[in-house]
């Protein structure tokens, strides 16, 4: 199982050290949480890992393969799926279409096949079946034909999760999957994450709500001011006074 690590990542924005020599390794199974106060650099780290930002220096690896300068779509094709802090979805199309978009290696996405349609109809109906299965998994199957824009915030978060799963990526990077949703929805999402762990997915999520982390994380990475200040098992790390202080400061 490939491990996912980065080495000495640095990124400066307008004089602010968003990432300062970040080196860490994400365990190759289970659920890892990246926590820290606002502005700690968590989302920046995620953006660098997924290729949306170029680091000023440093490198990232998936197993032995360097992924530092790969384009975001190439990294996605290697088996990563991510969500965004601002919940990116195509609001003007249906829930089903959003999930279908995420399906990988579609023959119908090649120009010639799109025009001539050899085997595309069959693949499309297979993709639809799989999409419905995923929507059932997250509990959105009844909303399949609704526009994504008509969903509530929590439902949209579930949809982004379904889209990630639709990509068949083994590694899921979720940016604040439970923030801003009411507690029932949060529990539902956390339950889904636990199920994904059982299914063999590697889940990495960013949160600043410690309770969610305590509930599901197997491993915690704590960041503050662009640096990794602690990592380890949650029971361990979260009791340390300096961590709690970083949050209160």
């Amino acid at each position: 199982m490939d491990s996912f690590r980065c080495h000495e990542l640095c990124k400066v924005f307008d004089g602010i050290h968003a990432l300062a020599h970040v080196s860490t390794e994400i365990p190759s199974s289970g659920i890892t949480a990246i926590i820290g106060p606002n502005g700690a650099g968590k989302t920046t780290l995620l953006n660098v890992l997924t290729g949306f930002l170029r680091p000023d220096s440093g490198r990232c690896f998936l197993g032995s393969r360097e992924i530092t300068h790969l384009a975001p779509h190439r990294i996605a094709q290697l088996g990563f799926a991510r969500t965004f802090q601002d919940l990116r979805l195509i609001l003007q199309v249906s829930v089903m279409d959003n999930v279908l978009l995420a399906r990988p290696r579609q023959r119908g996405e090649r120009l010639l096949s799109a025009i001539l349609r050899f085997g595309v109809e069959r693949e499309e109906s297979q993709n639809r079946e799989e999409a419905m299965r995923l929507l059932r998994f997250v509990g959105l199957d009844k909303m399949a034909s609704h526009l994504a824009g008509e969903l509530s915030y929590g439902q949209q978060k579930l949809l982004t999760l379904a889209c990630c799963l639709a990509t068949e990526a083994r590694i899921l990077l979720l940016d604040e999957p439970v923030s801003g949703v009411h507690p029932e929805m949060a529990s539902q999402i956390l339950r889904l994450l636990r199920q994904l762990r059982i299914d063999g997915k590697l889940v990495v999520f960013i949160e600043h709500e410690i309770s969610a982390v305590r509930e599901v994380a197997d491993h915690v990475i704590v960041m503050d001011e662009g640096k990794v200040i602690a990592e380890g098992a949650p029971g361990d790390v979260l009791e340390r006074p300096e961590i709690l202080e970083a949050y209160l400061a």
Partner: protein
Amino acid sequence: MDYLLHILILVCIYSVLAVSLDLLAGHTGLLSMAHGAFYGLGAYTSALLALRLGSPFLVGTLLGMLVGALLSLVVSLPSLRLRGDYFVIATFGFQMIVWGVFNNWTEVTRGPLGIPGIPQPAVFGWVIKSHAGFMVLAALLAVLAHWVVGRITGSPFGRVLRAIREDELLAQSLGKNVFRFKVSAFAVSAALAAMAGSLYAHYVTFIDPTSFTVMESILVISMVIIGGAGSPWGPLIGTTMLVVLPEALRFLGFPSSVAANMRQIFYGVLLVVMMMGRPRGLVGRYGFSR
């Protein structure tokens, strides 16, 4: 009757230009000002091949489409990785340059004198001489163009194009090679515009650079916008409006040069009014808004 057929033929030709631009602008969200140039490239390539080498209409058309698609790479490869605004400027530059070549490369294109005597098209032995015959050919090609664009937009490829239009970063995060999609869409739209050009050249039998200026590009943009971008019928409706309505001006007795200017003033004003009131146009699905 012939006059009516003439109008319908023009509608067919322009609808090919409009639907191909809609693929690019309406579905992918990329505004191009180079459609006039690709239209001209198709016209000149096909005309020159027919006159100099005696090549048949279909061959000339196909080669014109190939030229259009290949030259589209000159614009797309450097500029599609940047923001959409820069792509528009690159297409503007391309349009101006290509027009300059049409107008100045007198050894080949005879510059402002134009190319007369383009042979009437012959398709599998059937020589098309009458307006009625041309109407059939134009309609067939228009249907073909609409069919190709419809297939593309209705397929997963089209789904990705619209995703790119709405949120490029999301598309990338889902593993889509956004650059490849954009380059392909541009090449297809350029090839179809060239096809319209070839049809036009063999219809009017005389072409000169004045038909392929940046104004022509803006005219096609207006057709797409006013009819409605991103929809199957929008381009056709916009084309019909903008071809038929100005003919009314001619009936009102304005001399043709005045009519030409007034027509374009009409397009320009309508474009501005549409952007202010109804960017989706008459039946469009996309209003260029975020």
